[in-house]
């Protein structure tokens, strides 16, 4: 049995003048501790699928299970969601931001949990500061800390590195990768960056343009997987795979 099961999921958005078919018959299984990437042309439904997996929207057809529990409307499952921007609440201090999820989920808020998490994500003691006092990279680290604070079953990452400068992005990739491995977390990453997908994942799922369907699945070889994202980028197997996915993506977009 898989940890996460997506079963024949289809989704259509309805509005007054259009019915937009975003996803068509998606099925996939993810094992615990696996790292999966979604890539595909923009508008192919990646964000929609993440929202469905998070249980935030109900698919028009199909089901999603995490540890055999349906996700939609399930109040017991905790899911970590990271977005392209950090969406830290500007009127809350860093500490209040980090402990927000704990408070909402009525978990214990240990004193010092914020400083521990800040240390884990490689930040100095900025608990008492406000988000606007931090750089983009630091803020995204805080968002990661907020996400990890509630010990989520699964992490859903919707292009969380794409608004960062290149250096911050590489550092954060390594950080996220290490932390997920350390806690044996399951994660799904949506990205535009083929290199990032190869460097971070165990499997890459390529989606076809709208309506999104699974077009192809790329397994990453064991010796790349073992490396940190930064090292993976200089592995001999990296370039050929990049080329292969690139061509496939090009073909899909035209």
């Amino acid at each position: 049995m898989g940890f996460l099961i997506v079963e024949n999921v289809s989704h259509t958005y309805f509005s007054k003048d259009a019915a937009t078919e975003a996803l068509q018959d998606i099925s996939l299984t993810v094992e615990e501790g696996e790292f999966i990437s979604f890539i595909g042309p923009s508008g192919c439904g990646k964000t929609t699928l993440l929202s469905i997996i998070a249980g935030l929207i109900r698919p028009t057809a199909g089901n999603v299970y995490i540890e055999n529990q349906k996700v939609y409307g399930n109040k017991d499952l905790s899911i970590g969601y990271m977005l392209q921007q950090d969406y830290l609440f500007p009127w809350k201090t860093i500490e209040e931001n980090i402990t927000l999820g704990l408070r909402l989920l009525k978990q214990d808020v240990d004193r010092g949990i914020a400083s521990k998490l800040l240390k884990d994500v490689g930040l100095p003691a900025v608990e008492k500061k406000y988000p606007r006092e931090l750089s983009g990279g630091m803020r995204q680290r805080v968002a990661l800390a907020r996400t990890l604070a509630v010990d989520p079953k699964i992490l859903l990452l919707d292009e969380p590195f794409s608004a960062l400068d290149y250096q911050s992005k590489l550092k954060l990739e390594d950080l996220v990768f290490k932390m997920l491995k350390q806690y044996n977390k399951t994660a799904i990453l949506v990205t535009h960056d083929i290199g990032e997908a190869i460097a971070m994942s165990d499997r890459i799922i390529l989606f076809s343009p709208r309506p999104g369907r699974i077009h192809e699945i790329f397994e990453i070889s064991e010796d790349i997987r073992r490396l940190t994202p930064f090292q993976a980028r200089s592995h001999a197997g990296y370039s050929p795979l990049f080329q292969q996915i690139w061509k496939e993506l090009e073909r899909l977009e035209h």
Partner: protein
Amino acid sequence: MNIKELHRQYKKRLAKEKRWIRFYQLLLLIGFFVLWETASSNRWIDPLIFSSPSRIFRLLMDMISDGTIFIHINYTLFETVLGFILGTLIGTILAAILWWFPTLSKILDPYLVVLNSMPKVALGPILIVALGPGMTSIITMGAIISVIISTIVIYTSFRNVDANYLKVLQTFNATKWQMFKEAILPASFPTIISTLKVNVGLSWVGVIVGEFLVSSQGLGYLIIYGFQVFNFNLVLMSLLIIAVFATLMYQLVEMLEKRLIKNE
């Protein structure tokens, strides 16, 4: 020349410019009163209608020494402060209700438009009949004039809060109330404060008109009374006092704004 020195000079220039601006502002104020006084004493303008600063000052001194002016100022200030706080508060609560029940907001939409376009002071006579010719009616006037526009502006701000903040909260299984409390309301604080600023002015309108209609006290009453007994010293003095207090109140709200929104 080093940068420090240049910066010092730059700051000096700024300070100098500021002093000049203050100087001209003061000059304008003094000039206005001097001109008014001269025009009145030389009968270029009719002193019975336009009064003069010295007469107004004498009247003010009289009313200060017998204490009556404070009663009137107190009365009007109380009504205005309550009016604009109530207007903003009720506006916020109504906006919250509309946000909570989207269908209700769709149903009420045309009525809000009608209510908003209506000149609220026209409701004065009805309020007086309904609530009696007293302070309650006047405060209601002060509040009602700002409540609909506050509702509309604050509701719009509630709706424009970035949906991704709600997404973050939803992943933490937040309830609707928590979403309101943690994201919708605080994100709209700047808007609420800015309606507060607008409402200060609106409430003065409501309260003064209300006092025109019913009151036997307050600055609005003094204006209408002065008009009836043809004492324009009284009218103009009340106007000046209103100008001072309306400005003070606005400044106060602005200070509040700076303190509350410092973390943006």
